[in-house]
């Protein structure tokens, strides 16, 4: 059993749903090339405008006509989006662009044994979309489609002009006095084939369900996309906030249905002649609430300037993932937490920049600058096994005059393991940025060579590195003239002292 859902004015209905202010005027969507009306609202229809009437006629019939361009790509997107929504209720969906889609009821029979239940589900699912639609139920896909399009009750009454065949064959049939599908089916198949050709036989076989239909079944998309035409051109962010809110509510509805959250939003603002402005919002922690996402968008929007007036905007949400549970302690306080930590971190990262907000984490490495690492902000710190490390580590070691320091405890020798030397990992071990300044040129050349040499030569490189004392350091706890305890090291290769951290 198949249901065909015919959506005669999908794009227009969605426009009205997103912008209810438009409902009071005659609204049409027209095709730009042919200057013909494709979809119109009830007010326009009452004035006599019909789909496929020309745009000039429409202007004559309605003085305050609001014409918008019909976008095929958007119609396809909308249909996809609608199918994705219906996918929650119906497993087998096949799209029939631009205006319809099929649902197969057979796989759902266990869930909805009665066909009426299926129809109720369909109604429920389509209600929030606020679109007009017609349904047809038939044994085969073509019959369901013809019933939905024609609006008649029984298969036999379907007028012949809804038959999915070319106009020539239709004219032939009408001339023969066959006005309905019932009349055509009454004629013996072989006879009809003789008179009207093989094509008709195939068609009849498809209608009867004798031939297998090759339909492409719908797969739900991996992202969300929605595009919105603005009522008036706007050049300020303030005016864009309201349409954005609606789009984000749509997104929330979409994500809510899937129990997902998004980690990437792409807002595109379309201008008249120039390239659209794109605004990317990457989130470290997923979000799905419209109000929350609106704040993120606003944070990002404030830092961007619009080059021209905006006509349309679209939103795309990618990197959808299952929602992570938020742990909340019911008993222990929590009353003063007004914002969740992931949300706070998202906001901070959007405003300050992703790399400027991070967590610190231990790492199992003896090299001090590699014994810690940046981690995702908000992750907990692990236990450590090295003790006696300073609280502060200088991002780049600072050269010091050893005469001004008093060595207290040490040395703690750091020697790079052979595999790191052999693997050509040498630039990591030595030469923080500041060091390069004091290295003499020959040394720098040798460093450069050593990094460029392939693995084959690594043993020789290792031995030469050992001779040079590459990366060998002695760490000391020392005190300066003001009495502050610092963490110094002596670098054997460069034969000088560096300050690497502070204990206080």
């Amino acid at each position, binding site marked *: 059993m198949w249901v065909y859902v015919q959506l005669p004015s999908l794009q227009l209905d969605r426009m009205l749903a997103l912008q209810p202010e438009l409902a009071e005027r005659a609204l049409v969507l027209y095709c730009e090339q042919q200057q013909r009306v494709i979809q119109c609202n009830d007010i326009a229809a009452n004035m006599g405008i019909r789909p496929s009437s020309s745009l000039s006629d429409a202007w004559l019939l309605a003085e305050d006509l609001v014409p918008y361009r019909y976008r095929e790509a958007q119609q396809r997107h909308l249909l996809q989006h609608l199918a994705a929504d219906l996918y929650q209720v119906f497993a087998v969906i096949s799209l029939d662009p631009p205006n319809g889609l099929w649902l197969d009821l057979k796989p759902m029979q266990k869930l909805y044994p009665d066909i009426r239940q299926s129809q109720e589900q369909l109604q429920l699912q389509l209600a929030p979309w606020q679109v007009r639609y017609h349904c047809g139920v038939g044994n085969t896909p073509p019959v369901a489609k013809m019933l939905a399009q024609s609006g008649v009750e029984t298969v036999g009454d379907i007028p012949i002009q809804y038959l999915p065949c070319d106009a020539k064959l239709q004219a032939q049939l009408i001339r023969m006095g066959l006005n309905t599908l019932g009349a055509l089916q009454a004629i013996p198949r072989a006879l009809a084939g003789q008179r009207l050709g093989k094509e008709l036989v195939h068609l009849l076989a498809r209608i009867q369900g004798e031939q297998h239909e090759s339909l492409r079944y719908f797969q739900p998309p991996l992202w969300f996309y929605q595009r919105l035409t603005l009522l008036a051109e706007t050049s300020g962010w303030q005016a864009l906030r309201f349409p954005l809110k609606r789009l984000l509510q749509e997104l929330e509805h979409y994500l809510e249905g899937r129990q997902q959250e998004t980690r990437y939003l792409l807002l595109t603002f379309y201008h008249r002649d120039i390239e659209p402005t794109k605004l990317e919002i990457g989130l470290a922690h997923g979000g799905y609430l419209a109000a929350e996402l609106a704040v993120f968008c606003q944070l990002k929007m404030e830092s961007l300037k619009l080059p021209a007036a905006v006509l349309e905007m679209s939103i795309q949400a990618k990197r959808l993932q299952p929602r992570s549970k938020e742990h909340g302690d019911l008993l222990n*306080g929590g009353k*003063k*937490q*007004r*914002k*969740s*930590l992931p949300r*706070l*971190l998202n*906001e*901070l990262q959007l*405003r*300050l*920049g992703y790399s*400027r*907000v*991070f*967590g*610190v*984490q*231990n*790492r199992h490495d003896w090299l001090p600058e590699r*014994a*810690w*690492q940046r981690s995702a*902000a*908000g*992750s*907990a*710190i*692990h*236990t*450590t096994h*090295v*003790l*006696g*490390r*300073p*609280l*502060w*580590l*200088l*991002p780049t070691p600072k050269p010091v005059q050893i*005469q*001004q*320091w*008093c060595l207290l405890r040490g040395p703690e020798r750091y020697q790079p393991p052979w595999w790191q030397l052999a693997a050509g990992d040498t630039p990591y071990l030595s030469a923080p940025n500041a060091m390069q300044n004091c290295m003499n040129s020959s040394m720098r050349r040798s460093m450069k060579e050593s990094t460029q040499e392939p693995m084959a030569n690594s043993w020789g490189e290792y031995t030469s590195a050992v001779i040079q004392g590459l990366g060998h350091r002695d760490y000391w706890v*020392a*005190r*300066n*003239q*003001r*009495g*502050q*305890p*610092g963490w110094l090291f002596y670098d054997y290769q460069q034969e000088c002292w560096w300050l690497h*951290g*502070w*204990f*206080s």
Partner: protein
Amino acid sequence: MQANLQQLMDKGALWRGGEWKNSGQNSGKNGEFGAFGKAAATDYVSTGQPLLDQALGGGWRCQRVHELQCEYAFSGELSLLAPAVIAAASAARPVFWLAPPALPYAPAIAGMLQQAGLTNPESAQHIVLTPASEADTLWAAESILHSGQAGVLLLWADSLSATAVRRLHLAAAETDAWVFVLTGIQNEEARSYATRLRVLLTPDKTHAMAANAPRGQVQWQLLKRHGGWPIRLPRQPLPRWPA
């Protein structure tokens, strides 16, 4: 006020009636705060230094902004805040490091928490923020406080305007976080900090092991404190991060 009286009060040797009202029945004896009410005890976290605790009436108070003016960075100011960091970790609330002067070194932080014998050291979150401008820093500080998530907020700034401090104060009042502002030496113009502590580094030349590298000594000077006059505490050996 008479000079000798001032001297006595600076030493903390004088008991005053006003103090009694503010801080329970604090007898003023060294390190005894047993008479503090239960509610008050949770509001305070020790500085790790008995003398300073006593001067502050129990330690750092939460919901308040405390200022630490350091003549030189890295002069033991962070070790005064270590108990607050431990308290935040045991409450499983994050510590924010806003615009720190160097990298907080993860092994040292973890080592300190382990040494404190925390039952769940895995719940300690440390988040470092390095904003590009001071405006961003203040914005971040306010958002962090408004979210109510922070356990401890450490903010480094050169100098903060009166309005900025006022805003921080208001934001801090509605959370239960400990908020510390670490700056250089500031003038004594009025600001809405709860505590203003000046950390002065005074090298101890007398006990020098070597003449050119004396043992570190600090002097804490409280320019402003709750329930007391400004006070200058005796010199102490430079405290180190307990790790």
